[in-house]
């Protein structure tokens, strides 16, 4: 096994107590296998289930015991079968012994790789740890576990246990759980063993580290207190976004008969003097330029090289300051971790001394960093202490980038205290709000914290890999619906909300909110007139809404509603015009084949059109149309309509209602009595 490969044995408890969560376990494990197939396709995986009726493992065969432990798959390179295998785990009838399973798994790893092998060996145990373990032949359970753990550490096997702690129903024995917890904790003290408790399918999905990234230092060098005092440190990424895999572009242009077609797509860049010419500039005929005011300043690579900001690799301490001086929202990027060079004991101690003292006195350190030689910029950041709770882990620092003066856009915002009372909550409302903040609690105690980032998987990635698996089976597979487990991050926990129903109700009762229809339209207009940075965002959000109920015609049944819906659409600039012209057509139609009840409808439409034209500041559209309608009525001798028209006092839109109108107030009022209205240009 090469250095960067992993040998993994999955140990899954399939006993009766686990049946309810097994579907989610299957999902989590298949995601793990899928990612191995994509990113680490030389990794090797074995699968062991315990709690089964059958017993099938080498240890049972060779020395006996180890019952109800079944090896589903011996350790071998991941393949397509493995995904299906973990998707259909058997359901076992027996309460399994996780210690037996661990020994079987360890034995498999040792036999496969031996102690000398490089590479990573990992055991992953998924259980609810609620079933009793058997007493060993000699000694205590504690001794047995310690022996196993020491052996594990000696063999370089890492262990990860995921313990399901869904709602503890009555029939579990607290004592056994306690004992098992204790046993599992013994592993952590003696071997590299991690233990997470998960309470929901969501955190189960998040608890299994599905993507194995070989950590790479982005800096190894000195943390310089001053030129004479230096601490050797390594810097890694602590947080880095896991993205979707980069999908290659595919060309279907090659004829199907071409067996050697690569189906690849190349990207060509042509640099042309103008769009029209076909003349292409060679690389040496172009030069980089940067915008500076109205000009673009050309800079040759030589100039760039001699003039650019030059840096020297290193981390320099600027000083210490109170943690309260660095507000949390100033952190600019994903986070790094600064650990002492593991081979330098003195550096480990120096970091430990600073980190512990910083934590004690609530201070942070400000440092200036250049990660690589010749890097074109520097970063100023803050070191915060990361004091280890585990004895075997050295203390370290987290590093966050702070903004430079140029990065800040300070706008003054009105003080809340200066708002009029009508915008501020009264005492009763404040009490209701206090209650909500207190009771809608996601972390009643540190152990019970839910929605921890550490255990929350990325829904988009999860969905993509599920879809990929389906598509690999059938090309036109439909996109699977969102996994139910993700409801927990997209909506409030129904249990939490229902137990706090009275609080939620009193909150919604105390804080009345209502739409402001008038201003909504006006602000929309503002948005359109002044395209700013916000536009893209708005359009994107609204497109989504519009897709749900996109009304693009004014129908027969509810013309007024249709029209108002259409005119409030914001996913394009022309909806206002479209809506208005649709409405005009509808009104003309209603007027033309008017019966008595159609008249009311037509008037209703006309009133709505007038209202919206005022809101949209489109007075001309309406005024012209009104003239047109007037003429039409006279032409067709539809005097009964005209009479209604007058009685409802429908007038042209005057200047006072819409600034763009060129109809004076008096004129507008006169309109209905005027026989020959003046036509506008």
């Amino acid at each position, binding site marked *: 096994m090469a250095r960067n490969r992993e040998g993994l044995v999955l140990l899954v408890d399939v006993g009766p107590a686990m049946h309810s969560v097994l579907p989610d376990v299957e999902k989590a494990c298949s995601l793990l296998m899928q990612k191995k197939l994509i990113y680490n396709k030389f990794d090797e995986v074995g699968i062991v289930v315990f709690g089964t009726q059958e017993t099938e493992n080498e240890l049972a065969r060779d020395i006996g015991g180890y019952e109800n432990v079944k090896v589903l798959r011996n350790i071998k390179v991941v393949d397509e079968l493995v995904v299906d295998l973990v998707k259909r785990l058997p359901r076992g009838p027996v309460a399994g012994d996780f210690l037996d399973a661990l020994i079987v798994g360890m034995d498999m790893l040792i036999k496969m790789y031996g102690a000398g092998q490089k590479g990573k060996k990992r055991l992953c145990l998924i259980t609810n740890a609620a079933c009793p373990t058997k007493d060993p032949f000699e000694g205590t359970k504690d001794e047995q576990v310690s022996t196993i753990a020491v052996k594990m550490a000696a063999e370089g096997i890492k262990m990860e246990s995921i313990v399901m702690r869904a709602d503890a129903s009555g029939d579990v024995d607290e004592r056994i759980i306690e004992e098992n917890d204790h046993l599992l904790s013994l592993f952590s003290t003696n071997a*590299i063993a991690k233990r997470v408790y998960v309470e929901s399918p969501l955190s189960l999905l998040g608890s299994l*580290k599905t*993507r194995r990234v070989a950590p790479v230092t982005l800096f190894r060098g000195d943390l310089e207190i001053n030129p004479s005092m230096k601490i050797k440190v390594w810097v890694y990424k*602590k*947080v880095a976004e896991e993205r979707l895999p980069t999908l*290659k*572009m*595919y060309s279907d*242009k090659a004829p199907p008969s071409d067996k050697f077609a690569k189906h690849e*797509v190349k*990207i*060509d*860049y042509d*640099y042309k003097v103008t769009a029209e010419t076909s003349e292409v500039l060679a690389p040496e*005929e*172009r030069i980089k*330029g940067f915008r*500076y005011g109205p000009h673009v*300043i*050309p*800079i040759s690579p030589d100039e760039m090289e001699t003039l650019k*900001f030059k840096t020297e690799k290193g981390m*320099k301490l600027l000083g210490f300051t109170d943690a309260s001086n*660095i507000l949390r*929202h*100033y*952190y600019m*990027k994903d986070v790094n*971790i600064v650990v002492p060079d593991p*081979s330098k004991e003195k550096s480990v*101690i*120096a970091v430990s001394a600073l980190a512990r003292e910083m934590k004690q006195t609530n*201070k942070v350190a*400000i440092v200036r960093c250049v990660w690589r030689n010749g890097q074109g910029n520097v970063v100023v950041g803050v070191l915060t202490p990361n004091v280890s709770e585990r004895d*075997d882990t050295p203390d*370290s620092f987290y590093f966050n980038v*702070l903004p430079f003066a*140029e*990065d*800040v856009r300070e706008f003054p915002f009105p003080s*809340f205290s200066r708002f009029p009372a009508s915008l501020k909550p009264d005492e009763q*409302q404040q009490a209701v709000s206090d209650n*909500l903040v*207190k009771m809608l609690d*996601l972390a009643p105690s540190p152990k019970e914290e839910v929605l921890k*980032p550490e255990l929350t*998987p*990325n829904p988009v990635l999860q969905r*993509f890999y599920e879809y990929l698996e389906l598509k690999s089976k059938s090309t036109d597979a439909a996109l699977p619906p969102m996994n139910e487990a993700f409801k927990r991050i997209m909506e409030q926990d129904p249990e939490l909300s229902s137990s706090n129903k009275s609080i939620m109700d009193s909150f919604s009762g105390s804080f*009345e*909110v209502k*739409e*402001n229809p008038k201003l909504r339209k006006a602000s929309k207009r503002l948005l359109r*007139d*002044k*395209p700013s*940075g916000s536009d893209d*965002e708005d359009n994107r*959000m609204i497109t*989504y809404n519009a897709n749900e109920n996109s009304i693009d015609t004014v129908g027969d049944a509810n013309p007024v509603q249709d029209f108002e819906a259409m005119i409030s659409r914001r996913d394009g600039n022309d909806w206002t015009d479209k809506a208005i012209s649709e409405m005009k057509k509808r009104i003309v139609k209603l007027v033309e084949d008017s019966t008595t009840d159609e008249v009311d409808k037509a008037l209703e439409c006309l009133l709505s059109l007038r209202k919206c034209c005022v809101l949209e500041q489109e007075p001309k559209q309406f005024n012209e149309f009104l003239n047109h309608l007037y003429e039409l009525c006279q032409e067709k001798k539809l005097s009964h309509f005209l009479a209604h028209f007058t009685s409802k006092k429908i007038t042209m839109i005057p200047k006072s209602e819409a600034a763009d109108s060129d109809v004076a107030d008096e004129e507008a009022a006169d309109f209905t009595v005027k026989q020959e209205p003046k036509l506008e240009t």
Partner: protein
Amino acid sequence: MELDPEDVFRDEDEDPESQFFQEKEASKEFVVYLIDASPKMFSSTCPSEDEKQESHFHISVSCIAQSLKSHIINRSNDEIAICFFNTREKKNLQDLNGVYVFNVPQRECIDRPTARLIKDFDLIEESFIEDIGSQNGIVSDSRENSLYSALWVAQALLRKGSSKTADKRIFLFTNEDDPFGSMRISVKEDMTRTTLQRAKDAQDLGISIELLPLSHPDKQFDISLFYKDLIGLNGDELTEFMPSVGQKLEDMKDQLKKRVLAKRIAKRITFMICDGVSIELNGYALLRPATPGTITWLDSTTNLPIKVERSYVCADTGAIMQEPIQRIQPYINRDVMFTAAELSEVKKISTGHLRLLGFKPLSCLKDYHNMKPSTFLYPSDKEVIGSTRAFIALHRSMIQLGRFAVAFYGGTTPPRLVALVAQDEIESDGGQVEPPGMNMIYLPYANDIRDIEELHSKPGVAAPRATEDQLKKASALMRRLELKDFSVCQFANPALQRHYAMLQAIALDEDELGETRDETLPDEGGMNRPGVVKAIEEFKESIYGDDSEEESDSGAKEKSRKRKAADAGDYDFVELAKTGKLKDLTVVELKTYLTANNLPLSGKKDALINRILAHVSK
């Protein structure tokens, strides 16, 4: 624009927030800086940051100089003009006395800022008295009124540009709170009336006038004497107007910086608190990394921008592909195909709203729970009445109880869990330091967090920890190295400063590039103070001991190198090199030789072989 293939292939949609700083043509600003140059501006002083006395004139000019630089970097489409009043010389289209419009060649009076303008304006103080001169322009006998004239000139300058698409502003710098105070009552009334009328005319044309008053150390600028009417403040606003009128240079710069940048909403957000209560928030990008801007490719002979065209070519047939192009993911011996629509459907999992999930104590928000710059949230009642009230209530409760809200935000790709941290307003003498509101912090997912600590633990082996004495020494060191009054973002980005200094130098054909000070370097003077040196020495000694060999290297690296060197002995490299058989070895085997001889390990196999050959032949 330079096209980076990596970038083109990025699976993520361009974050619209990153465009936040880039202005679009349509929303441009016209600004006239109106600077009082009366003798009083030169004679009055106030303390600057390094306790030196600076004249009010100097303060105004350096504020504007800084503001010009930020204009040219961030909003180079804005057009600006600089105009002094109360000057000896006059230069303006109206030929009015006491008003001098400052400009440089190849530039209209009101135009986009150029490198030359910035350069010359930086030097204006040297030549001001000689070339432009200071002279009180408000004379009661001759009925001269330079303030009136200045407003007239500014208004005429701002005639440019349609009032619909552009913001027009006048920034007025003065330290005279009662310009007509010394006049006879009748003259005073007359002048006041005409001046106010002039200001009102300008305001009616959509020009806003903003006042940046300078106070004397012993006498506050009294805005109620005259200027409150000029800038159109009434009762309430008057008390709100600048909690403290600028005294220090730094405060003034801050004020100007805050006011010059128009406030822009990055996004509108619907915040769903619970059933029936969804409020409206505005999100602002208050912190985003500033960059040198994109590269524009130019034709090296003409220096004119060139057009970059990108085309997708089928590698098999050479045919040009039309977008959108299908994508494939190799998966278990086959290629799984996705259309662009399918991929965007996968990413679309939410409505883009902000959904409250619950609350946690602030201690649950760890230092490594961060992905990218935060977004500032402030309520608005514009669309949903009642938003502000509900927001303030939650804001207060959260501060009171020391808790933050966890919410799901669908407006980013991918949607993320976010922490909403309530921020109370912080004010200082210079104005608002932190606005009241909530900061939305983007949280990582489990997939994004790496367990580095585990990598560095040695099971069963206790990690070395500091002793009591070492902690004490560390504490002493920290006290010595305390940064007093540290504020985030007090440093200018040296790389960016250098970049713009370079552009300015090239634009003006200067050979010399002025030194840009790197403020981020440790303060050497401070570090060399005996007390500090002693504290560091003591800490060092407590850790490393008397042993000057601070590198107490356990030698792991050296050992492994040596071991590898021994491995290399398996082959006679000299012999292999001579017979040309190096290529038969594997890369790993080749590298053993390179390691043993301290040669670089980079490059392809051919490069490695060449390196060995070169080394052997020496």
